[in-house]
Every structure is written in C-alpha cells, then in structure tokens.
C-alpha cells in the first residue's frame, strides 16, 4: 500500500505492525509523535502491547530492561536529552544482552538548547554497546525498524534506528507500507534464551562482577558486537528478497568510477545524491558514500568504499570536541591506516543544531575537493561548514 507519511508516522506504523509485547516511553520533541501515535493504536485495540507511560526516559528504558529480561519484545522511542537521560541504562541493556529497539529522532544535545537535527545525541552513546542504524528517509526508517527487531533478537543486542529531526521526522513522504500480516511473519516470535519470570528455572540477573569476572563478561559482549555484521547483512538480504527493497551497511552511490566522493549519514545522504546527479550531468566523476550502519562500524565494506576515490570529503553532523574532528572522519582515518592506497581527506563538520545543508552547499564542497585533487594537498583538514565567522 502506498501512503503519505512523515518519518514519525512511518516509525509508528512499523511499531503497529511489529506489535511489540511492551512499549515503555516518555515523550520528547521531535520524537513525541512516534509514541503518541502508537498510544492511540494501544487505545484503539489495534495492538496487544502493554503500554507503560513512564515518568522519565530513565524510567522508560529501565522498564524496557525489565520487560525484555522476561523475554518480551520491547520497543521505545526518544531523542536527544531523552537518550542522554537513558545513557546509564543503555550500557546495562547491552551488557544484559537485551534486544530492545529504540525508534530515535536525532536532535542536538544541549547546550545551547535546540530541537533540531544533528547527530550529537546518538554519537554520544556510540560506546554503549547498542547497534546504530541511520535512515536516509522515512521509507528506510520504516523498513529498518522492522529489520532491526529481527537483527537485535538474533544478535541479542539492543539497537537504535534513527531519523533526522524534522527533516525526516516531520517531512511528509511517499511510503510503501508492507502488508500487516507480512511483518509478524517476517519477524516470527522472540525466542529469549531465558526469562526473569521463569520461577521453575530461577536465575540471577545482573549480579555484581568484580576483578575476577567483569573482564570476561565484557569480552563476551565485545564478541557479540564482532559477530553482528553478518546478521545485519543476512536480515537486509532476506528483507530485500521478500519485500523488494534492498539495503547495505554502506550505501555507495555512483562510486564505481568516482574520483571525488563525499561521505555522510542520515538525510544528507539523500541531498548529496541529488548533488552527485547534477555534477554527473556536467560530466564530473563524483560519488557518495552513506554510512547507514554506524555501530558496529562496517569496517570491510567501508574500507572498500573509501579507497575508491582520490579525494574524500567526510561530512560529520556532530563534533567530538576533541580537536580531532568528527566521528566518521576519525573512524575512516583509523581504518585507512593499513590501506595501500589512501584518499586525501577533508572533514566537514556541518549542520549543527539543524543548520540547513542545501544541494548547492554540497556541490560547493565537491568543487573544493576537486581543487584539492588538482593541488594534491588538503588545505585545511577540518572545517566548520556553514558557520558564520569562518
């Protein structure tokens, strides 16, 4: 069925079709609608979900941890400060290997207070042990929400699927909805390895773990993250075969003969693709790399992509405040250390607090990268793109 939906509506529709056992949530702009719409499905009896309107995001995710420990399929939604308030529990959910899924909307973290898009919220949680997938549009957000439930449950790891605040969350798009029956069929039942409420087989959950066992448990969690990429690829493939929409961990656009490339995450991937099309019409050999799966970092697929161009502009919608530039920039420079050929790289920190990035802005960045190709030198490795006073 083809409908018109915003990103938030798309994620709420996915949640309706997934019909989770438990949803515990607290509202926050710009993700409020996801759960607001879902609570209406609960009220109308369209889903069987036990809905827990919690008093904070910390409580919401804690309720999710409890419910998921029982073996329930559990989802929630949040953004920005909400994810920051969940931060402590994120690590616990991952350590307990609970496949909770968050439908998140990327919004700047305070301060200054802001409600618009950048990726500082999820990137601040990058080391929490959660999977992170960034959608380019509402369709991908919808499809990925469904995929992520399956990935998380197989990997026994929690995951975040995210959209860009307002650009995707509130922008109306054409959306292809799957048949209501097909989604539960695709997902099957959650099969938890054990349940907190199984009184016949009582277990201790989350016990104190000191010098003698903590490291072994953490190593086991790291191993789970090491093994998740093949699961993501398998689920993406299965989704593509069943429903005809194909996704990859790294989205390469016109990269095969590209001499100049730009990398981005989220909606900027879409904007950048239009810029690529325009420049290609003028005969310029440009391409775009979109990091779709960010946690775990898809090292092999990314290395394949980033070694194709001669010059690469990496666009980060957050800064690490470390003097080292953005997250993608650091990750890519790290994986390129052992590569035989390395592109010249320039880091563009852009779009903080929802500062708009236009097709023309990206075309201009491509032009700068062409200049670097000509001179063979990166003039300035980290730039703040679109900020006044530079």
């Amino acid at each position, binding site marked *: 069925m083809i409908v018109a939906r915003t990103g938030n509506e798309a994620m709420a529709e996915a949640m309706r079709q997934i019909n989770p056992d438990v949803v515990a949530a607290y509202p926050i702009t710009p993700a409020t609608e996801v759960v607001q719409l879902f609570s209406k499905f609960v009220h109308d009896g369209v889903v069987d979900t036990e809905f827990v309107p919690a008093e904070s995001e910390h409580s919401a995710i804690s309720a999710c941890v409890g419910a998921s420990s029982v073996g329930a399929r559990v989802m929630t939604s949040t953004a920005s400060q909400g994810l920051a308030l969940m931060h402590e529990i994120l690590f616990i959910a991952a*350590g*307990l*290997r*609970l496949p909770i899924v968050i439908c998140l909307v990327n919004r700047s973290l305070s301060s200054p207070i802001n409600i618009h898009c950048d990726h500082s919220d999820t990137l601040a949680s990058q080391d929490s042990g959660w999977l992170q997938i960034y959608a380019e549009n509402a369709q991908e957000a919808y499809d990925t929400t469904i995929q992520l439930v399956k990935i998380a449950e197989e990997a*026994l790891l929690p995951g975040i699927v995210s959209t860009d605040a307002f650009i995707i969350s509130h922008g109306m798009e054409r959306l292809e909805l799957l048949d209501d029956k097909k989604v539960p069929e695709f997902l099957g039942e959650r099969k938890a*390895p*054990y349940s907190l409420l199984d009184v016949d087989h*009582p*277990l*201790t*959950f*989350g*016990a104190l*773990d000191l010098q*003698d*066992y903590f*490291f*072994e*448990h953490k*190593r*086991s969690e790291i*191993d*789970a993250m090491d093994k998740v990429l093949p699961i993501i690829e398998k689920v993406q493939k299965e989704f593509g075969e069943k429903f005809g929409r194909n996704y990859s961990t790294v989205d390469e656009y016109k990269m095969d003969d590209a001499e100049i490339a730009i990398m981005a995450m989220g909606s900027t991937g879409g904007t950048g693709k239009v810029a690529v099309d325009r420049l290609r019409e003028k005969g310029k050999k440009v391409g775009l790399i979109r990091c779709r799966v960010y946690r775990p970092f898809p090292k092999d697929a990314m290395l394949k992509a980033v070694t194709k161009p001669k010059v690469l502009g990496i666009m980060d919608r957050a800064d690490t405040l470390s003097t080292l530039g953005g997250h993608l920039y650091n990750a890519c420079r790290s994986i390129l250390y052992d590569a035989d050929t390395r592109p010249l790289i320039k880091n563009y920190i852009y779009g903080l607090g929802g500062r708009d990035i236009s097709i023309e802005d990206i075309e201009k960045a491509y032009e700068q990268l062409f200049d670097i190709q000509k001179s063979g030198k990166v003039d300035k490795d980290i730039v703040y793109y679109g900020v006044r006073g530079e």
Partner: protein
Amino acid sequence: MKEKEGWRELPIGLALEAGTCKNFETGDWRSEKPVWDAEKCTHCLICWVYCPDSAIIVKDGKVQGIDYRYCKGCGICAEECPPKIQAIKMVREEK
C-alpha cells in the same frame, strides 16, 4: 579450587544460577555477634522478621539459634528484641 572459566564458557548476558548467596558465607565480616538466650526467648519472631540476612534459625515456629555462617553482626535482632525480654545480646567477636 576449580579453574575460573574463560569468557567463551560464560552464559550469555550475565544470567547466572540463582541462590548463589548461599555459597558466599558473609558471617566472616562480623566484629560483634548476637548471643541468643533460649531461657529468655518468647519466640515472638520479631528478630526473624527484621534480620536482613535470614540468619535467625526457626523450626516449627520456634527460634533455634543464630546462623553464624551468614550473620554479619549488624545487631538489628538485639535492638528489636522487646526491651522486657532482651533475649539477644551483642558481644565482641574474639578469636
């Protein structure tokens, strides 16, 4: 003592067998111990209700004594034992 497991042998997600506190005898932290007087005790079971370590041994509704393997010597039992009864006294642990 058996060798500790490597990370590959551990159950997934920090789920461990239940009731392992039983194997961890916390009584050796004690600096004072409660001494129970069977003559004075009226078996009101207030000490049993209040003991945070389930260290009051009760059989058929009657106090039998104190489980020193788990008693941490907090003194709550002696404090809660009714003032007119005073069947539990705290004494210094001495080797």
